[in-house]
Structures are given as structure tokens and as C-alpha cells.
């Protein structure tokens, strides 16, 4: 993420989370945090405990994020926020918590006749392959909760649509047949099948490197009967480095009623 993207992202983030933006500038941004956001990102639990136990007046912080420190000439005090910085990672985490579950209706023109909306379960997965190197993949599935049909790259297809959170008057959402929780199981299974069918040469290679390095290590301690602690430490380090793992997590998902 480039600095200008970070700036834009922060601006959207604060808007969406009801933190009023006090100053917006291409190189920095100042926001008045809400109480909830202060608790989430300012790391001051004792302050909040104190305020709450004494019934004091809460005073959530203002936060200035400088996204282009090399460009800011005026005397702006704030935190340097860049891709990779602690603060931005924290904000990403909060965004993930606050944007994890949705329940939406596709917007329908009120003047139209009644329109049936089909329920879909949308789930976005991130799959990571780990050994001494990494590779990540995103899978976005949409499961038609009426027919069981699965649409791939679901998010890409719906991201431009406009959605509302309350049912539009003219819309008639169908009652789903497949239960959402059962739907997740189906999508999980589909994902596992895709993963199983993938080329796992990477894991094989890591295994070979592991075996080879283990042999080298054993050779060093060949004649030692009671192997010292550092042998075990090294052995463990090899495992951590080379053991192939596949991790799978759901980024977000929800119910979408589509035309």
C-alpha cells in the first residue's frame, strides 16, 4: 500500500467509524476518535477504567496520522503512519473486526413492482502456504442458498452493486432453503478440494531441504553421546523453518440478497 493509498484509507476508515475528521490534508489527517475507537486503538485501558469507575467526563483522543512525513513542512505533531507501521496494522485489525459480518439487500427502485431477491452466502477466504517461504491466495465464494450453486470470485462481482441494510419496500427476499451454517460447511469442503488438487511441490521441496539440513546437523554432533541443549534448539528451529503448513482463514462474509 502506498502512502497516498494509506491516506485515503484512513480517511474512509474514520468516516465509516463515525470519527469526525478535523483536518484532511493529502499528507496527514486528524480525527476526533469516538469513545469506542479510542478504546480500540489508543491502548489506554487504565484511563477508561478510571473514567468509568469515577463517572468522569470521557475525553476521547484526537489522532493525527502523518502519511507523508517527508512532505510535511509545517509544524504538524502526530504519528507517522505508513504501510508496515504498528498503528496501521492495528487499524487494519480493527477494520477487520468491524467489517467481518454483513447482512445486505441489493438496492431496489421503490417505484418498481415487487422484486424477488435471492439469498446468497458470501464468504471470503485467505489461504496461506507456509514453509521457509510463503504464498497466499484469496478465494471468494457465493453460495446460492436456494439452489446450492456456487459462484466463484463472488466479491468481485458484487462489489460495484449498491446495498442497503434494511429491506427495501419493493423487495421480496426469498426464505433460504440451505441454512447459512450448513452453507459454510459446503464452501469449506469446496475449498479443501481445491487445495488438495493444487500442486504441492513446494512442500515436497521444503521437506527435502529439511531432511538435508537435519543430516548436516546430526553430522556435527555425530560422536556426541549426550547431545547438548543447542542440538535440540537447532532441531526445533529446522522444524519451524521447513515444516509445511496450510492455513485457512475467513476474512469476512455474510448474507446477500441479490436480484
Amino acid at each position: 500500500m502506498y502512502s497516498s493509498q494509506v491516506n485515503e484509507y484512513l480517511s474512509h476508515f474514520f468516516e465509516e467509524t463515525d470519527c469526525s475528521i478535523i483536518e484532511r490534508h493529502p499528507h496527514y489527517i486528524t480525527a476526533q476518535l469516538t469513545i469506542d475507537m479510542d478504546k480500540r486503538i489508543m491502548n489506554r485501558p487504565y484511563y477508561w477504567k478510571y473514567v468509568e469507575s469515577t463517572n468522569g467526563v470521557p475525553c476521547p483522543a484526537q489522532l493525527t496520522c502523518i502519511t507523508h512525513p517527508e512532505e510535511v513542512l509545517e509544524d504538524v505533531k502526530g504519528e507517522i503512519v505508513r504501510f508496515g507501521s504498528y498503528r496501521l496494522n492495528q487499524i487494519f485489525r480493527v477494520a477487520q473486526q468491524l467489517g467481518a459480518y454483513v447482512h445486505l439487500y441489493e438496492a431496489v427502485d421503490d417505484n418498481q413492482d415487487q422484486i424477488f431477491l435471492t439469498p446468497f452466502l458470501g464468504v471470503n477466504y485467505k489461504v496461506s502456504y507456509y514453509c521457509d517461504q510463503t504464498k497466499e491466495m484469496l478465494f471468494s465464494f457465493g453460495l446460492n442458498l436456494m439452489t446450492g450453486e456456487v459462484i466463484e470470485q463472488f466479491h468481485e462481482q458484487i462489489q460495484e452493486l449498491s446495498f442497503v441494510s434494511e429491506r427495501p419496500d419493493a423487495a421480496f427476499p426469498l426464505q433460504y432453503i440451505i441454512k447459512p451454517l450448513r452453507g459454510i460447511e459446503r464452501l469449506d469442503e469446496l475449498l479443501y478440494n481445491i487445495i488438495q488438487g493444487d500442486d504441492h511441490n513446494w512442500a515436497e521441496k521444503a521437506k527435502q531441504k529439511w531432511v538435508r539440513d537435519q543430516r548436516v546437523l546430526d553430522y556435527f554432533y555425530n560422536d556426541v553421546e549426550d547431545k547438548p541443549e543447542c542440538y535440540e534448539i537447532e532441531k526445533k528451529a529446522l522444524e519451524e523453518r521447513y515444516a509445511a503448513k496450510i492455513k485457512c482463514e475467513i476474512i469476512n462474509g455474510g448474507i446477500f440478497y441479490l436480484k
Partner: protein
Amino acid sequence: MNVEKSPNWEEEFAERLNTQQWDSWKLYKMCYDVVKTNLITEFTGLKSLKYLPNVTPLEHQLEAAQTVIERMNGKAILADEVGLGKTIEAGLILKEYLMRGLVKKALILAPASLVNQWSDELTSKFYIPAIPYRKNTSIEHTDILVMSMDTAKKSPHKEAIYAEAYDMIIIDEAHKLKNHKTKIYEFVQSLKKKFCLLLTATPIQNNVFELFNLISLLKPGHLGNFDVFQSSFKASKHDLENDEFLKELVNQVMVRNRRQDTGIEWTTRKVHNIPVKFTEKEREVYDLILQLKDISPVFAGSFSMITLQKEMCSSKEATCLTLENMMKNCNTKDEIAFVEEVIEQLMALQTNAKAEKVLEIVRSAEDKVIIFTEYRATQIFLQWFLHNNGITSVLFNGKYNKSKRDYMKYLFKEKAQVLIATEAGGEGINLQFCHHIINYDLPWNPMKLEQRIGRVHRLGQEHDVQIYNLAIADTIEQKILDLLHLKIDVFEKVVGELDDILTYKHPI
């Protein structure tokens, strides 16, 4: 393949279906977009580069980073010659692993004088929040910690560090680990090294066993165990085939870029070995000092004798200090009388032949000059001597803290003609604006010479670098010169050629 899946999402989803509490569509999209933008789509390649506008890595640095990650699996000795940017390479590698989620906690061990520099560079260039260790820093709660080796190896830090699971260990100036009998070696040996970088321009200083020790820290067994290595090495000292084999093995864990293969046009080094002749008086005192070992058992040890001889080749101030200290251990009157006599003659010396030579060089250079000496007393004497001859100078040594170092560097750049540095000043300062170096006295170790020269002969140097090695004829300094050549020879066989440090190797 086994797939790990965290069940947390579904559990809360079930709850939300009951409570009907839902999040905003816009945050949902933002969340997806972040994950998508930051996705690591390939096993190979450096993903972090495009996010680092403050770093413009050179070709050899990129190649080094990629080689370490993809071919050496994240464990390597970075042994570029001084001044080619090992720190940049280490930063690239660390950043890549951080971005790929393979490293969360990292520990960087550096000499005390470079701790702040490391933290500054990682933060400003690589946006890696590297925290320099201070008294109250919580080791447990700091993900990327920079610490001095001396602090780290002591309790309670040692235990605190062992308690953490670091994914990556970076050790700067790793030649400090050449001896496997030291505390610091033991300390590093017991650290878990999932990924590990050892940085040193000088992986061999004296003999090939130092390299063995370094590699055995990084990857025990890679060069066999000690007995095997020793026997195959001792027996075949001049066996070329064996050397080739060793070179091959070393190259599997070590990246070494030399100036000429960086593709950058380097200015050359012009080495002048300047023999200096003692004055008659100086020679008399030097010979007198040699007699000391027959006069008193205090001076019988070869180490103290060598020290005195070296000091005598440096300055009477340095010699006198040692003599006075040693005299305290003398018991008989005769011994004390003799030493006092030596000191008296010593202090009566009017001229320092070497210092006169220095004056001559500095005057004819008409430019900034750095003088390296091994002794503090000589350092102060030289400043006084130059001052009396109308030449301005500043002092520099490794004990200075960062702000003082920066200030001295500034003074040298803007105000003074000469910088006089002791050995400890050799590491971690960059003085590309100067291109004359006088090695006032020679260290035993060729790599120390390389470190010294590396202060000025690095990226950014625009002139040929003039190096003046001063050695007093027919003294111990002659022997040091010979020994230096021998050591360079070992280094070249195993690691690669070294730029001209001393011209004697290739007589014109």
C-alpha cells in the same frame, strides 16, 4: 496436506444470525481490499521493494537479499566488503520476512556504538519499528529489538532473551564471534536461529578456524565437526583441491560482494608503504627497551615485550605509560633504577621521526586526512604535535556516544583538517568526504586495516583513496608487515581476494 482452519469466524457468525447485529458494507469492502492489496501471490521474489520509497537498493544488494531468501533459506553470512551496504541487505531480508508473515519477532545484536544507527536506519528506510534497548525496555513486549552484544549476554537480559521465541536473529560485526570459547559465542549458540544473518566484512581475521566457528554457529555441521575439519585442514594445508572444496561449501552459506563485481565504478586505492627511520636517539631507547627482559622478570613475558616495542614505534607517551605501570611490579632496587633510567632517556627524546613524517604527508596532501593509531596516548600526542605546527585536528574514538560522534564528524567535515582515530573508531562511521588515510601504526590483523580503509573507500567516494602505511625499519613493525601478508593469503584462498591493503603482495 493438512489444512489448519480457525473456527472463530463461524462461531460468531452463528451468534450474529441470532442477534441480527451487522457491520457496514463499506468497512466490509475496505477490509477485503486491504487483504487483497497485501496478498503475497508468489513464493519467490522480493515483495517488499515497492513499499520502500526511501531505499534504492543496488543490483548486488537485491541479488544478495534474494539469494539469502531463496537459495540459502534465510540463514547466511553477509560478508560484503566494507562499504557495500550489508545493512541494506539485512534490512531487505528482514522486511521481506516480516511482510510474508514468516517473522514476527526479531533480535538484532550490534556493537553498542551502532545500536541507535541500526534502529534509525530500519525505522526510516524500511519502516520497521526497531526499538533500541534501554534500561526500561520490556524485552517481552518488543517485537523488533536492537541490543548490544555485551548487554544481551549478561543476566538478566540473557534469560529474558532465551524466554522469547525469536524468528530471526541478526548479528552485526559478527567477527566478534570468531572464538568459540567466549561467552558471547556460547550465548549465540544457544539462541534459536530459525532465520539468522551474520554480518561481517571480515569472516576470517587470523585463520580458517574462525570461519569454521562462524559457520558452525549458523549451520552446525556444514563444515563437518571440529575434529574432522581440523584434521582435513591441518593435513592438507597446501592442498588446492581441498581449498576448492571448502570454498564451495563456504559459498553455500555466504554472500560476499567485492568492489569490482558490484558493477559500480570504484575509485582505486593507492597504497604507499612508507619506511621511517628512527633517529639515533630513538634507536638507542628502542634497544634499551629490548634489554629490559634480561634485567627484570616483570618484562620477561613476550607479550609485554611486544607491546612495549610496538608502543615505542608509536610514541614515547604511549611507551611511558606502560613502563610506569610495569615498574610498579618491579621488586629490586636495581630493576627499578634501570627502568627509571629508560624512562628518563625516553622522555628526553626531542623528535618523533614518525610524527615528523606524518606532518610531511599532511602538509603535502593539502586536504582532509584521517590518522589511525592504536594508542590513546599517541592520539593525544599527535593532536598536540599537529597543533604546534599549525594544523587543526579532532579526536575520535569508539567510546563516544552517538551525538558526540556526529559532532566530531561534523567538526572534521567543516572545521578541522585532520581526524585522529583510535582503533575503536574504525567501525560504523562513514567519512566519504575524505580520501587520505595514514596508518600511523599497524594492527596485527589485516581485517582491521580493511575496516579502517572502509571508512572512506565506500559508496560515495569520488576520489582515489591514498593510503599511507608507516612502518619503522628494523623494528617489530617489520615483522607485523610480514605477518599481515601471510594472513591475507589465508583469507584470499577461502573467501576471495581482498582489495589492496598492503602493496608488498604485488611488488611493482
